[in-house]
């Protein structure tokens, strides 16, 4: 049959072109729109307005801090747990997997609703603390972080590594921090970057808990300023790309480095 040849099939090109148009047209249109802040000519005025707005930097800085806190807490909660499940408590795996999948089942708006109702009133009145927002973000990050840690742990031989470390006299903590963690850095990093991208653009929790994060800022600009909002969409898309490319680059670099030191 003709299909056996290595030539790409014509239909494949058709679907690719449809995809390319659908995927890139909105970005091109947004870029075009963002450059039309001055009537009748192309200009960077919308971008200048954004970069001159202190609200832009403040909200970006706020989301950045929240993202870092979220990543640290999420790693601290998830990675030791995933390690312990692999090493010692295999029967806890379904339970842990269920909990980490829950944020997919319970939508963010419902999580926000639950958190606000539960922590609104004494004895747990801390709805006005940014820590509640971070807690919500950590919940949102659980599926990604656990999946990343689990994938990493499946790729290494946890029992042998732990056994080797302990027979050389390492304590439990030493084993975890000096042996397991370095072997997981590529997968933890991909989970961390994904969490970062999610938190930086997050809108639901930050808006419902009334925090001046980057997502609500974008929405606020969008209500009043058409061109500036298009510029913000481009900036936010570029930021997401930057984070993803950085992640791919680092993870690939580390995977390559590990392949050299430990061929399997």
């Amino acid at each position, binding site marked *: *049959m003709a299909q056996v040849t290595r030539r*790409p*099939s014509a*239909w*494949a*090109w058709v*679907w*690719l072109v*449809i*995809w390319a148009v*659908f*995927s890139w*047209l*909105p970005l*091109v*249109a*947004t870029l075009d*729109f*963002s450059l039309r802040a001055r009537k009748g000519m192309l200009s960077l005025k919308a971008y200048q307005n954004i970069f001159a707005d202190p609200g832009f930097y403040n909200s970006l800085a706020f989301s950045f801090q929240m993202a870092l806190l979220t990543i640290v807490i999420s790693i*601290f*909660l998830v990675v030791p747990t995933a390690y*312990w499940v692999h090493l*010692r408590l295999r029967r*806890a795996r379904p339970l842990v997997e269920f*909990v980490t999948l*829950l944020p*997919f*089942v*319970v*939508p*963010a708006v*419902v*999580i926000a*609703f639950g*958190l*606000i*109702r539960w922590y609104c009133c004494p004895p747990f009145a801390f709805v006005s603390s940014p820590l509640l927002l971070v807690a919500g973000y*950590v*919940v949102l990050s*659980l599926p990604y972080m656990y999946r990343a840690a689990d994938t990493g742990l499946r790729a290494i*031989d946890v*029992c042998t590594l*732990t*056994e080797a470390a302990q027979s050389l006299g390492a304590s439990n903590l030493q084993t975890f921090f000096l042996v397991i963690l370095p072997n997981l850095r590529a997968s933890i990093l991909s989970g961390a970057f*994904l969490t970062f*991208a*999610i938190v930086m*653009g*997050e*809108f*639901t929790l930050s808006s*419902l808990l009334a925090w001046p994060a980057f*997502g609500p800022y*974008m929405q606020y600009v*969008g209500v009043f300023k058409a061109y500036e909002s*298009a510029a913000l*969409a481009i900036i936010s898309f570029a930021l997401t790309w930057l984070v*993803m490319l950085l992640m*791919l680059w680092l993870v690939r670099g580390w995977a390559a480095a590990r392949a050299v030191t*430990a061929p399997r």
Partner: protein
Amino acid sequence: MAVKSLLVEKERINLRGVLRARLGELHTVWAWVPMLPFFVFAVAFLLLPSASIVVRSFQGEQGQFTLANIERIFTRPDLLRAYENSILLSIATAIFGGVLGFLLGYAITLGRLPPSIRSMVLTFSGVASNFAGVPLAFAFIATLGQMGLVTRALNDLLGRNIYHSGFSIYNFWGLSIVYTYFQLPLMVLIITPALDGLRREWREAAEGLGATAYHYWRYVALPILLPSLLGTMVLLFANSFGAYATAYAFSGSQINLVPLVIGFNIRGNVLYDPGLGNALALGMVVIMAISIAFYSYLQRRSELWLK
């Protein structure tokens, strides 16, 4: 790894058994202690708040048991309408995203496009599936809004405004196009590994027996792929059903959606009614839970052949 190369397979298994036995001497209860931070956090910020929604949906103002909150959803046409809109929008975008994503997945796997295109499509999909919410709304207003690039281009091309022919980015089909933008890349990311799992031998065997491309797809490939196709589309359904930010950014939209109604309830404006809010959230969780249960059932079915 040096240790590993010195040991033959059998001894390694023995050693692991010794390790297990030694760890087993620890008291079982102590084994759960390192899990405490994780579970305490999950209980405090995920399980208790979610469970309280379920409980409070069935509670009246004095805390007595009642079904009134849930009944109220069924007696309010606007709320039923919101559920209907959300479900229909999620089904429509799951089908659009699912079909387009499958075709694109086909193009980059079995379609034998160059590997560079494959990795570009997958990287872009990783970014685009996260490109939801407010900026996505801006992008589509700039594209298909009243003054959007495509709207103006079609105006010049066809000589008439598509908004005069009933199209609007703010109505059901307009929103479907916007949602499809983040559904399509998710489909591509999930379905590509499944398509990679289709073995070349299966096609060769089918062709050796005289099957045409149609026969192969109809009797071999699609039946194998069907559970993962449907499963991923159920996931897309859930993904769109829970989306709040994109819906909110189109708040000028004429169509009402469940996440928006819950959001209004939290913000405490005219609609404020805690019991009703809990019942609405419960309805959302129930629909999500059913779809995720369906998804994991289909997932198990697909593992029969793939992987």
